């Protein structure tokens, strides 16, 4: 009997910067009972164009991504931000184009952020233990566009010996904001300084989140400050890869 399948949209940032997140996603999705397909034509969801005001560019990229992903039964994305782009903003882009709107809505309906998808399957990590402390930052798009808050914490609570510590201002933006962080670097820096301080104040050894962009921002700030806090994408911990190199640690 064949297993249900999912297509993994790995995201451009994971593809280039931290493939481990993609491989961790493969592993946990297979554990959750799925055959995982990696659609070969995938690149980027187009969020940089969307948030820069390049509507036509965003539409062109959205069309390409829809065509690439729509053949699959369900699509999983290890990012609330890219998941939100496909799930929330693609249909907005085609508000005046009924044919593409229908395709965008169909794709949106079967596209899921990875952690909330795993939680909805009832899957929990089995036999994964990590004797340390971790704090969780709620990335904004996942939190507010997709309602991801409880799910990652529930999944992490099944990791043996991992103690979750609260983060003050966990729902406050880290100051990344995609192109914002290079358009207004000084503001972005002031925001992420406060975030880094809160992370250090949490007393946790690990910083976890569900979006690589935010993680790179926070980890990069923590490293510049000389902090010992290490950062991982949540799925790496769930896949039992929490004993490997953290973001920015040479492999």
């Amino acid at each position, binding site marked *: 009997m064949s297993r249900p399948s999912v297509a993994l949209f790995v995201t451009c940032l994971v593809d280039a910067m931290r493939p481990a997140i993609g491989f961790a996603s493969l592993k946990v999705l297979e554990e959750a009972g799925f055959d995982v397909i990696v659609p070969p034509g995938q690149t980027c969801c187009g969020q940089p164009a969307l948030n820069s*005001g390049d509507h036509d560019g965003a539409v062109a990229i959205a069309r390409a991504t829809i065509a690439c992903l729509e053949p699959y039964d369900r699509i999983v994305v290890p990012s609330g931000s890219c998941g939100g782009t496909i799930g929330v903003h693609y249909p907005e882009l085609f508000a005046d184009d009924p044919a593409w709107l229908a395709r965008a809505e169909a794709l949106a309906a079967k596209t899921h952020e990875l952690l909330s998808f795993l939680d909805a399957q009832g899957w929990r990590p089995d036999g994964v233990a990590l004797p340390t402390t971790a704090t969780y930052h709620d990335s904004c798009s996942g939190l507010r566009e997709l309602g991801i808050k409880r799910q990652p914490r529930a999944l992490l609570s099944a990791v043996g010996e991992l103690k979750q510590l609260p983060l003050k201002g966990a729902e406050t933006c880290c100051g990344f904001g995609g192109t914002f962080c290079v358009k207004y670097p000084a503001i972005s820096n002031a925001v992420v300084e406060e975030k880094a301080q809160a992370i250090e104040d949490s007393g946790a050894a690990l910083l976890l989140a569900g979006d690589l962009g935010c993680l790179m921002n926070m980890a990069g700030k923590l490293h510049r400050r000389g902090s010992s806090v290490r950062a991982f994408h949540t799925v790496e911990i769930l896949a039992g890869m929490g004993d490997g190199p953290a973001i920015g640690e040479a492999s």
Partner: protein
Amino acid sequence: MSFGQRVDLALADKVLKVAVERTAGTAEAKRALAVEAFPAFEDARTRAAAIKDHVIAHLGHYLEMFEANAIAAGAQVHWAQTADEAATIVVDLCRKAGAKSVARSKSMLGEEIGLPHALAEAGIERVETDLAEHIIQLAGERPSHIVWPAMHKTREQVSALFRAKHRDPHVEETIAAMAESARRHLRAEMLGADVGISGANFLIADTGSICTVTNEGNAELSVVPPRVHIVTAGIEKIVPSLPHAIHMLRMLARSATGAALTQYTTFYTGPKREGDRDGPEEMHIVLVDNGRSAMAADAALKEMLRCIRCGACMNHCVVFRQVGGHAYGGTYPGPMGAVLTPALDGLSANRDLAHACTMNGRCQEVCPVKIPLPTLLRGWREKSWREGLEPVSMRQGLGLWRQAVLRPRLYRMASGATVRAMRLLARQGWIARLPFAGAWTKYRDMPAPEGGTFMAQYAKGRRR
């Protein structure tokens, strides 16, 4: 001064950061408690948005209804298409009243139409009666927040100002003593004014009433004693009837300060009646368009007319909390200001504002009328792009990137090459200085790519 320069000034001002944090932080905490005590708040937000949308869809009808009822109650209604027209109407009314001095109760619309400046030009003395506006007036500055205009000032700065300008200043170095100093100073000036000018938080269509809310009671002290009361109000302030206003009032105070209601909520319907012991002989209501009718017809901006000026969006904005209100450069700061200012003052001079947002969505989440502020800001970004206002480097960079994104094979080559190049710059996993991304590495390190893109490794058969 450009937005970027104003931001640099603001970030360098550590006192400003402390001042903003004290007030906005308090407001944020108090709002959270108020919302927690009101479990149906989410549904109430939906209803508030629906009320405003209903009004905006039938704005002309309700304005005519309001006008007829206000006139029936004895008020005089004036209409102004632009800020200048509105200011001229007010100044002319003051002149006609023979006014030497006017008592003014804070209204953001008054700031929007440049009333302080217009009154000064006309040689009419202006007594700002809201404590924060009084501070701003003494300092010769502009408001930095729509609810707390003097949010950027610390107690030490206010103290020095009052000592220099008040006739009988405070002795004790406490905030209470400073407020008392202002009370002594302002009372006589307020009561001697010839004209009282207020804004309106709501215009009630079915009775022609105007509603003001204050915590200080300064609006009442400003507009009850003088012979003439002038109201300036944006045309979007209208609600059909009192029950609608009541719903909005429940949302407004909780969102602004966390209170159930402001201390003083007053509805005025026309001037003094026969037999009344106090109140003005004349009441004038100036209905101001200044771009609002155009916004009502613009799908990308219409929802902004829902705004009830509570300030929650700025109190919860990570950018506002870092740079304060003056950096935004317009009458209205924060997320709502970043949407409104380009509509009021033009996009080309204000395109920066639309980008001064991380799109984190917190403002929309706390907005009592559910204005999709990030979406409206994105709308300005799109307009700016369409009109060619975005920098050439940005357009070209994104254009090249788009070409690659749309060609997966080219994209794989480019991303592979980028990964290899970045790894050459790394030391022990981190990049401290990155060409073309100096804005990132100026403040934080960049984790080096792990090596080999996911797609390349997967194609080679790696699965774990």
